[in-house]
């Protein structure tokens, strides 16, 4: 075991644990209200929102999976970059409008908005369940990041319950401070996490290319066919169409995830959000550098070194980033870097569990089980739900093979994308009918799950044969096109037969920007 690294790692972990509990008192509000526990009272200013959204979207799994994908697959893995470039211009145009209407009507979740906008509990339930189902495997995947670094410290992970003990401890800590402090805990921890991540990435990006003799040498060591997307062959667009559709579809999916909504609605105003989206690309730039770490790991040949080869055998390409740290840095810095990954897993896991808990409480418990519940009871329910969600994710990782979590997360992206017509078009227009949106949602889901099942849930692409061409694209995006087509046709039909429903709790003045 790496003693020095472990001591630094545990020390930093204890620090953020204390911070997590203390943050309950920070800008204290009446914690018996759900918008206090679950949205931090909608009072987060510019800086905190920046850290919170950054800490939320750039998860530990990203730090591990993106270099792993570049390490293993080459150019395709770089899709993470156009993905994050696409996100901010889109959310700049769309989400401040959601914030304004949500504040006006005290909406905590996107489903709350859909329920109000369309007066349809069924559609709101569909959106809420989709959100919860898509979020669960995402939380489980955060644990993978922790597992990899705990393994890197020299603990034997993946050998039954004892091997998973450090992971279980980390999760109990997470569950406890989220329970007491709500969204304030990840918000304050995100600041520490981001500092650690920036320090680690900057050190890696300076030291490793220097030791390897510059970027020229690094790229020269990569096989030519990995460096670019393969050319179009025999009318098959191949990765040339899959790459941009995966980036675009993932960007759309990202803003629909419940944890993104939670972070966005916790800002103190729409202009705080708009300012944030000017500066959030700083994270994306770092993500690009992290992606290049995959090539550095490849060029350095660390996977073949006797002391690191066993790790690569156990964790595969996912050990690319931890491996670089272990090989090129002193033990104490390995502790810092590994803590960055582990804490980077706790922040989004906390926000995701809060988001799922908000959805369950507002759109399932309050809407269907106990409509008359008091605000206090509502908040207690959400706190309890956040524990259940996290415990479920933990069981998932401890008892099921890792590939299940990865496959479900992949499916989750396809599913969450199907909530776009209801949520995003609702932000702009009430033209669509709720029943038609529900029909489109069901069609998109059914087709998306079928298309993913064709590859045994291993691939997120579907090859469409159209007029002699083969166009592989992200399944989520094809499903979304179908979803919209069904919703439009069904709305036209319902309007024609006079069955369209025009109920709407919001008015035009609730939307601004």
């Amino acid at each position, binding site marked *: 075991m790496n003693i020095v690294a472990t001591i630094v790692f545990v020390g930093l972990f204890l620090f953020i644990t204390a911070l997590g509990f203390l943050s309950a008192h920070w800008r204290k509000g009446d914690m018996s209200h759900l918008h206090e526990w679950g949205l931090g009272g909608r009072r987060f200013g510019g800086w905190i929102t920046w850290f919170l959204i950054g800490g939320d979207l750039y998860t530990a799994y990203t730090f591990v999976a993106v270099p792993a994908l570049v390490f293993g697959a080459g150019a395709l893995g770089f899709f993470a970059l156009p993905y994050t470039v696409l996100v901010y211009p889109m959310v700049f145009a769309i989400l401040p409008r959601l914030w304004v209407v949500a504040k006006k009507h005290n909406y905590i979740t996107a489903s709350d908005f859909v329920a109000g906008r369309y007066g349809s509990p069924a559609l709101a339930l569909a959106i809420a369940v989709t959100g919860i189902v898509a979020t669960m495997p995402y939380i489980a995947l955060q644990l993978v990041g922790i597992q990899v670094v705990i393994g890197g410290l020299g603990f034997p992970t993946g050998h039954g319950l004892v091997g998973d003990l450090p992971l279980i401890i980390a999760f109990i800590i997470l569950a406890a401070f989220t329970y007491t402090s709500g969204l304030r805990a990840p918000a304050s921890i995100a600041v520490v996490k981001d500092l650690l991540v920036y320090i680690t990435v900057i050190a890696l990006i300076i030291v490793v290319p220097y030791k390897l003799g510059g970027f020229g*040498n*690094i790229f020269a060591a990569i096989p030519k066919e990995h460096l670019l997307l393969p050319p179009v062959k025999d009318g098959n667009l191949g990765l*040339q169409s899959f790459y*941009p559709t995966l980036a675009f579809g993932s960007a759309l999916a990202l803003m629909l995830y419940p944890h993104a909504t939670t972070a966005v609605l916790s800002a103190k105003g729409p202009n705080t959000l708009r300012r944030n989206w000017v500066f959030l*690309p700083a994270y994306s730039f770092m993500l*690009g550098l992290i992606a290049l770490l995959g090539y550095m790991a490849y060029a350095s040949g660390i996977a073949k070194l006797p002391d690191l080869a066993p790790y690569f055998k156990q964790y595969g390409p996912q050990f690319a980033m931890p491996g670089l740290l272990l090989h090129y840095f002193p033990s104490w810095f390995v502790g810092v870097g590994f803590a960055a990954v582990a804490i980077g897993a706790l922040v989004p896991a906390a926000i995701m569990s809060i988001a799922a808990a908000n959805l369950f409480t507002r759109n399932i418990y309050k809407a269907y089980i106990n409509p008359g519940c008091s605000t206090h009871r509502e908040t207690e329910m959400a706190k309890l739900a956040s524990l259940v969600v996290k415990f479920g994710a933990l069981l998932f990782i401890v008892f099921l093979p890792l590939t299940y979590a990865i496959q479900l997360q992949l499916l989750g992206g396809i599913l969450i994308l199907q909530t776009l017509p209801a949520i995003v078009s609702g932000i702009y227009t009430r033209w669509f009918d709720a029943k038609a949106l529900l029909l489109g949602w069901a069609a998109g889901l059914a087709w998306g799950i079928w298309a993913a099942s064709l590859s045994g849930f291993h691939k997120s692409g579907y090859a469409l044969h159209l007029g002699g061409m083969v166009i592989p694209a992200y399944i989520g995006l094809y499903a979304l096109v179908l979803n919209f087509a069904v919703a439009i046709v069904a709305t036209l039909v319902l309007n024609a037969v006079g069955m369209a429903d025009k109920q709407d709790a919001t008015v035009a003045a609730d939307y601004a920007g």
Partner: protein
Amino acid sequence: MSTPKKLGPLQFILLAIPCVAVLVIPYFNKLEPSVFGIPFFYWWQLVWVPLSGVFIAIVYKMVVPSGSGD
């Protein structure tokens, strides 16, 4: 809460520029010209990260009145 102006066609075009720049695969799917040994495919997409921030900042200046706190 100060009301920002509505996004018009010009603002939508400005926001769309960075998006299009990272989606035109045939244009940037090549090795040369490389910069500091980084192939075109990689640095082109990396450069558009800060540039997207610049475009968003321009739109921000256009639609949000200066001194809006919230």
